[in-house]
């Protein structure tokens, strides 16, 4: 049960969001340097927790993503950062802390002070983290004996997110989630600033991780330790906090109304609140007959009950493929 574990942390380093996060007008302002202190204590706890625990830190920077630190690299003198010995601190802690901060500042030196900010490469960082774990799970055969595979590091990824969802990253994020599922990687998310991220909620939900919206932001460390320090295997015994419910309700594409019953394009899966002759997303034309039938069911039920919501033509198990019933899954968790 209490095995060693691997943690890959992804830091969302979007400068404008961090500036907004630190603004005193916030109910709970959190500046980047305070965040960094909390984070470093958490990372050190993970290393201290078990001697064999391994750690990797990835950064999602504007327009680029990279590996900041890894236990593997730190153990190799050719790649490790040179860290001055400090009699007042534990050497492993110091190595992590100093390597991380140095690498971040080196990257921001390179970025300089541009006039526009490219979107943060969260997908890149997530993909790199998954690849990194994949390599840990499947070491080259010459390097390991078969017994090692019994001691897999129970991998997980923790995303510390401050940026809002970027609409064009939906598909790559979903693909990353599927890869993570396949590798049995747990994705934890701490939404440190900004509105809830629907994508990351799904990432946590689908990989069995925990999604936390940071409420009392000054107490970040409390949240990190309580929710994200226990390894997935220990979470079978210790329940960790997570989101109460994930919102699976669908909104129509045409008016963004949350709908009980929607009409789904059979080609691109766009959702509409009423039958349409042509899908406005993918331009697929629907058969006239089907349309008439669907319209008829709508018309009769609308005039019937006077309901403002569109109604199902057959709200039982014989559901036609063109309709979707939403709001059901939300209760199932």
């Amino acid at each position: 049960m209490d095995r060693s574990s691997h943690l890959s942390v992804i830091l969302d380093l979007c400068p404008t969001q961090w500036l907004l996060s630190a603004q005193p007008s916030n109910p709970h302002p959190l500046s980047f340097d305070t965040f960094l202190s909390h984070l470093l204590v958490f990372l050190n706890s993970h290393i201290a927790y078990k001697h064999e625990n391994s750690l990797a830190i990835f950064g999602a920077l504007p327009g680029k993503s990279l590996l900041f630190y890894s236990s593997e690299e730190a153990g190799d003198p050719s790649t490790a950062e040179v860290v001055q010995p400090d009699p007042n601190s534990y050497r492993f802690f110091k190595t992590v802390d100093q390597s991380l901060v140095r690498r971040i500042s080196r990257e921001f030196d390179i970025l300089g002070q541009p006039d526009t900010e490219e979107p943060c490469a969260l997908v890149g960082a997530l993909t790199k983290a998954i690849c990194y774990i994949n390599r840990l799970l499947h070491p080259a055969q010459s390097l390991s004996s078969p017994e090692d595979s019994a001691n897999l590091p129970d991998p997980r990824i923790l995303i510390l997110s401050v940026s809002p969802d970027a609409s064009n990253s939906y598909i790559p994020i979903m693909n990353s989630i599927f890869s993570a599922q396949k590798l049995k990687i747990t994705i934890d998310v701490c939404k440190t600033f900004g509105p809830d991220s629907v994508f990351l909620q799904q990432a946590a939900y689908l990989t069995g991780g925990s999604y936390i919206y940071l409420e009392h932001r000054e107490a970040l460390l409390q949240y990190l330790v309580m929710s994200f320090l226990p390894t997935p295997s220990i979470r079978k015994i210790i329940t960790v906090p997570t989101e109460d419910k994930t919102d699976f309700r669908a909104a129509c594409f045409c008016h963004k109304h949350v709908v009980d019953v929607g009409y789904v394009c059979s080609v691109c899966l766009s959702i509409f609140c009423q039958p349409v002759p042509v899908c406005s997303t993918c331009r697929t034309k629907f058969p006239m007959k089907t349309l008439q039938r669907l319209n008829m069911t709508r018309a009769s039920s609308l005039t019937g009950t006077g309901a403002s919501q569109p109604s199902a033509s057959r709200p039982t198990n014989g559901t036609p493929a063109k309709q979707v019933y939403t709001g059901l899954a939300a209760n199932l968790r």
Partner: protein
Amino acid sequence: MPSTVLCTGKATYKKQNGTLQLTNSHITWTPDGKVAPSLKIPNMDHSSLLCSKVGAAQVKLKLVLYSFSEGHTFTFTNPAPVATAEREQFKNEITNYISRNRTARASGQLPTDAPATPATTNNFAAPPPRTPTIRPPGGTPRASSIASDKSGSGNDVADYQLRKRVLLNSPELATLHRELVMTGQITESEFWDGREHLLSAQAAMENQKKGKSGQLVDPRPQTVDGEIKIVITPQLVHDIFEEYPVVGKAYSENVPSKLTSEEFWKRYFESKLFHANRASIRSSATQHVVKADPIFDQYLVKDDDGLEPRKPVAGDVEMFVDLGATAEDHGETGNQGDTTMQAGRQKAALPLIRRFNEHSERLLKSALGDGPSAKRRRLNDSNSMDVSQIELDDLKDSQASEGIALDMKNSQRYFESRATSEGDTPVQVSVPQAFNELESCLGGWERSLTHFTIDKKAMEAGLASMTSNVKSRLEVKTKRKEIPENLMRQMSTCQTAANEFLRHYWHSIYPPPSQASLPLTETLKNQRAAKAAKMAGYLASTREKVEAIVKAAPYEKVDPRRVELAMRPVLDAVNKALAFQRNRIARGGTPNPQTPR
């Protein structure tokens, strides 16, 4: 066809004296003093045969049938030598039928009611009748054969049998059927309306042709009354001879000249020969219980675990199935060698693997026939690395359509609809300032880490909120299984019944597209209206039923509100249908929504 009597004997059946008789079509048993047989079994129902030991106090014969797996037991009543002779005769004749039945069933020709062909073959070695029923190469895919079956089975009996088997396979459906159809609430045909796919799936499954069983003959000892036994049936003997010709050879050379049949089998199962023939490599562990046997040990051959198999591989091995061929991919190119599949790495497994291979080849031959089959010929003709060699006809979808290409014109909106839909205007911040600010934060990290503190109030608030989060989830988890089975069953019964009524209600209001094309006659209209009214009537009682369950909940120590909550979606759906029906009636004979306008 006049039936030929093959053998007769005096035998008791169910403790009654009588006469057992085998003809070329039936086996019959007639009680003494009667003319008509009280038991008559067609020969093609014979499935297997069990006999009592030679020399046992009673001479028994047990006949197991395809239609009656418990079988019938007969005890021969004549004095011992006569009874044994009679029994042997029955045994030989019936074994022939059993073996023929197996072949027939294996090749999918289920015996029909037509009388069996007269018994002419008496030898085991006769090849199973190979009929040209094997699918012609590249011929009709399975789907078409089902379709033709379906059109042919217009008769109700077949339909009824099919439905019965579907119900047998699905207990939930059977329960629903019992509750709705058997109580007369809906008719049989209504019930199956919209479930045709279940029937066609069942029919398709039943029409799958079964080949010969691929199992290696491996008699395993069973413990009977504390004794370890291997039960030998005539069928098993046949199978062993076929699988291991050497045993057959030993049998013909030693029985009855040196050994009786019984001794032969007793010694065989203790011999090294038997253990060499076993379908596992654990024989090495049991080596010490194996006795040396002067007769059987003569037939032993050295284990087939040399570098080359004893039986040479016939012909060239196809590139696509040659594991050795991939070895060339490794080495020069720098790829790591295949460590998982090394032929002969475990020497002890070699004889077994080779025996499996021989067995498979035999099986393949029995299915494809000895001559070059269409498939083999095709493989042999084209020596080129043609990908068509690994194409399987069965995997081709003959009805595949082109599909509709996904051409996203408006992908931005598509993805935005999934993201947080907060269209709030982003707060304007100075980008260079943001970069500058973040970088400056990195400077004093050591100092802030040294002076790190957490706001106590915030920490406690965070702890409290997370604890309550965990607690609420824990409560849900621990309470999950609280509803007792009895109540749960009532709830689910109520729910499935209501769903079924709803299905029929909406089905009559909005017929599926397949029926929508039917000409809408006045009768059809009335039929549908009547059905809708009937279903609405049933639905109206749902509320009452739910209320009864809710009322019963406290007696089962369940919070009635939970039952109410669980049943609410069903009630909502029912109410929607009922409201719809009321409006229809209020509007008075609404035009059927199917009428094209």
